[in-house]
């Protein structure tokens, strides 16, 4: 049985938050666990016509399959009060600006209320989660590298660019970069990519 089919079966039906969490605790893969959780939160919010998007460090971790680890799950949402309510129902507690679920070892950080311009969808079992597009993520990291002088964010941008080069809308990337980070974009596009193979 494929993982996908098995996940759909495991999480099928309209699960209560309690039964969802008890199933989720058995998931051994940390990234899959986070995506399932995000998918469940997304499904609960979409029932109320609201949205939530994965951004920041967790988005980088997802696109790099865990090579750049992060701490909390940064999200933006159209309704933070409703998102907090869903998180509370899943056993999350508010600690300062972070929502933490101690047994799961997962923390959410609602960073804002804006929607990414070009989000992508992640299908995970029966759920769908939304993630910021690679282009916007690259630009965000380049901004951090340039204006906050964080070298690690330049590396993240470079790895993302190299691994998604064929899928990236380069015109869009150049257009947005022109405002602020065109110099760094030129650097990551002109530095040779490693031979990746398939």
């Amino acid at each position: 049985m494929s993982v996908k089919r098995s996940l759909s079966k495991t999480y099928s039906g309209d699960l209560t938050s309690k039964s969802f969490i008890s199933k989720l605790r058995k998931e051994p893969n940390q990234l899959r666990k986070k995506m399932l959780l995000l998918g469940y939160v997304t499904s609960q919010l979409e029932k109320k016509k609201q949205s939530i998007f994965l951004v920041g460090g967790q988005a980088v971790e997802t696109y790099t399959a865990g090579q750049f680890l992060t701490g909390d799950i940064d999200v933006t949402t159209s309704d933070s009060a409703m998102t907090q309510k869903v998180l509370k129902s899943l056993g999350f507690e508010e600690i300062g600006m972070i929502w933490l679920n101690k047994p799961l070892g997962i923390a959410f950080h609602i960073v804002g209320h804006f929607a990414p311009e070009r989000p992508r969808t992640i299908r995970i079992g029966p759920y769908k989660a939304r993630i910021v597009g690679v282009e916007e993520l690259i630009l965000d990291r380049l901004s951090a590298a340039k204006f906050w002088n964080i070298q690690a964010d330049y590396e993240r941008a470079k790895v993302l660019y190299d691994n998604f080069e064929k899928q990236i809308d380069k015109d869009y990337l150049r257009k947005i970069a022109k405002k602020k980070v065109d110099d760094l974009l030129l650097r990551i596009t002109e530095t040779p990519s490693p031979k990746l193979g398939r």
Partner: protein
Amino acid sequence: MYVRVKKIGSKRYAYLVEGVSKKGKVRQKTLAYLGPLVKIATGVPDEISRRVDSKVRNVDWNKINMDIRRIPLDFDELQEIKRNMLPRVLIRRQNRSQDIGRGNRPRVEGELAALTIIARRGFNEMFRTLKDGTLVMR
């Protein structure tokens, strides 16, 4: 007692206000100025709360901070908050798991290229990309 936000020019500022009944109508009375929204969005700093406490009695700062946190921020405000919080972020990042085992050492030649290849392989093992760009987690 609650928080009111006023936009002046391109910036938003927060005030502590209360509803006062006057001739059958409820009016807002400004009790204290809290500061630019971006400066207090992560919680009213101690120096401001002390200043306000000296003028206004019985302020429930937990409630006020919760009210402030519920105010939607726009992208520029969020960027400014991030910049303000940068020193704290940098300290936190220095201790983050991503640096475990590497510390602040510069990468050796080929390390980033290897990491790129591992990330690509890991992503392809974990996700399938559909024609419309949707990612399907395996």
